[in-house]
């Protein structure tokens, strides 16, 4: 029994990490007033370039760096479309997703002329001596370094958003862009900064998926996690701590699926595979309406126009 719980916790943390990273990234865009439906495309690009970077250099960290750059490129397209061209952000986000889902599959066959290697150097678990041998709780001390970084980012981002001038500016742009503009805050610039942060974190989240879980790239491997990450922003009530909880919840749903499948329980596997998606719908239905999002979310900013 203890083994099952330990295994489940271990899988939960592993599954929650990519969602949490992407969701924290999406939080910046949400608070600055941009709907980030492009997270799926940002993550898949991060996952692809994470593996490609590790394949080229042999280092998963340089891979993750390349993954972040890829995520940034995908995110910037959303930024240009929603901040400068001022089009429907949901449709633009969907366009980014379709484009990068296609590009990653396309270049997966082109960039690896001899076929993709079955595995590249991936993140290794860091075992904290002593602590990791405590039963059950020990799993928290034998994760890969990226998981620790992810959890460390939660208080950092909380501080950044709530206790710094930058955070105040960013939030004001998402709530009252015209008021912020009249105070001399560059609305578009703040939103581009949010887009850049979302791209970097989302790309890292994608790399956490491909380099932290399976050590290779599979077409469409994000399978909706980008959308789940965006939902986690709403479910987590637009706060980093809430997002941590929501990501662990969604990670847990994926972990249940993996563990129960492995244990050979009689319920057909497809029902467990549905679980994360059904859970997202149910939780959203319970939470939305009771959460108040940033006021200006989804609305392009046009100077001098109300």
């Amino acid at each position, binding site marked *: 029994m203890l083994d099952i719980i330990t295994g489940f916790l271990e899988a939960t943390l592993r599954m929650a990490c990519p969602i949490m990273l992407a969701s924290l990234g999406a939080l910046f865009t949400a608070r600055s007033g941009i709907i980030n439906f492009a997270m799926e495309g940002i993550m898949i690009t991060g996952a692809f370039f994470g593996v490609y970077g590790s394949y080229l250099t042999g280092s998963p960290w340089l891979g993750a760096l390349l993954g972040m750059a890829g995520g940034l490129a995908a995110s910037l397209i959303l930024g240009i479309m929603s901040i400068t061209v001022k089009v*429907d952000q949901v*449709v633009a986000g969907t366009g980014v*997703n379709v484009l990068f889902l296609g590009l990653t599959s396309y270049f997966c*066959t*082109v960039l690896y002329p001899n076929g993709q290697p079955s595995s590249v150097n991936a993140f290794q678990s860091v075992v904290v001596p002593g602590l990791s041998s405590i039963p059950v709780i020990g799993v928290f001390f034998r994760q890969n370094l990226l998981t620790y970084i992810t959890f460390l980012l939660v208080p950092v981002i909380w501080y950044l958003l709530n206790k710094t001038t930058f955070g105040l500016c960013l939030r004001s742009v998402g709530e009252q862009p015209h008021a912020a503009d009249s105070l001399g805050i560059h609305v578009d610039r703040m939103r581009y900064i949010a887009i850049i942060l979302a791209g970097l974190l989302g790309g890292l989240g994608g790399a956490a998926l491909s380099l932290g879980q399976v050590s290779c790239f599979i*077409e469409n491997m994000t*399978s909706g996690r980008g959308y789940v990450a965006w939902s986690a922003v709403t479910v987590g009530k637009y706060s980093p701590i809430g997002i941590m909880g929501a990501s662990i919840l969604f990670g847990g749903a994926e972990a249940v699926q993996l563990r129960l499948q492995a244990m050979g329980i009689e319920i*057909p596997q*497809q029902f467990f*595979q549905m679980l994360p998606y059904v859970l997202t719908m149910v939780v959203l239905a319970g939470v939305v309406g009771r959460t108040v999002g940033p006021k200006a979310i989804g609305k392009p900013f046009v100077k001098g126009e109300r």
Partner: protein
Amino acid sequence: MIQMNIGGAQVQVTRKKRTESPLFQKVLGLGLALLLVILVTGIIIALSGKSPLVAGQCMIRGAFGTKNSVAETLIKSVPLLLSALGLTICYRTGLTSVGSEGQIIIGGLMATIVGVKLAALPSIALIPLGMIVGAIGGGLWASIAGLLKAKLGVSEVINTIMLNYVATYLVGYLVDGPLQEAAGFYPQSDMLGQNAWLPTILSGTRMHIGVIIAAVSVVLVWFLLWKLPLGYQMRAAGSNPIAARTNGINVAKNMVLAMFLSGAFAGLAGSIEIMGLHHRLMNGFSSSYGFDSMAVALLGGLHPVGVTIAALFFGALRTGANTMQRTLQVPVSLVNVIQGLVILFVLTQALLSRFTIRVIQRYAGKKEEDHHA
């Protein structure tokens, strides 16, 4: 300016410049967007070390070269067109559905159940029944997201995406369990009864009556949106929900109804795919027609006529891409890339046409000055 003499009175008529007509601007914008898509796609093909010109030739030959390839292009346009017509209704009502894929799958599932379980019925009853049940199934599936949006305000985008995955796994379970073929070997259903197969209308090809049904649907959707009070209410709810509500239009009801209708068209597309081509249910039979149809609806300018042209374009693209992969080894995932580019560039169409018109006007203005000088 034109001087006219009407009934003894001098009347001055200012004729609108052609560049000011909204239709001209829209067509110009869409045309430019398409041109950019082709340009960028060419660059991407060139990056992979293949000649874009040869690839293009290959695609055109593959899509229109023979009688059979034209038929294949038309067959592939049918689900795209039906599902994009549904999305047209949906987007016009102000709802961004990404759920066509799941609705197509549910429609196909329903048609399979009808076609397998009621195989004894005569064709004349079985075929319409399969289509109707498929459409209702797709419609109800979409209504889940519509209801959650109308009642609780949950984003229909997220829910339609989640429902896609749920539908995929649901069919995955059914073809591996209760609906699996009697032989029990592959994860697929039994064959539909012969009576449920759609009749072909062009001998020697796979072209079935779905083509006619899709063509009729184009007229139906146009009539619904622009000739019926319901369509007016839907468009009003979409373009200005607050004004619509003030005028006594029930926005929530229209939302659910629009989602149902869009799901019904996608469901119809799914049932036609099953009854016309595959004749049995299996995983992934929809091959992402639902996602393509988003690009089709947007490229078609959310108008039935435009959507028809866009569906034919994408149908040809799919048929051509298969030939291109066989002859040039250019991956079929290029179609996804093109879709994404279409969505993004079409979004910028207003900007593109405004920019071009400004350039044209500056050039024309300069010429006029030269003329005066």
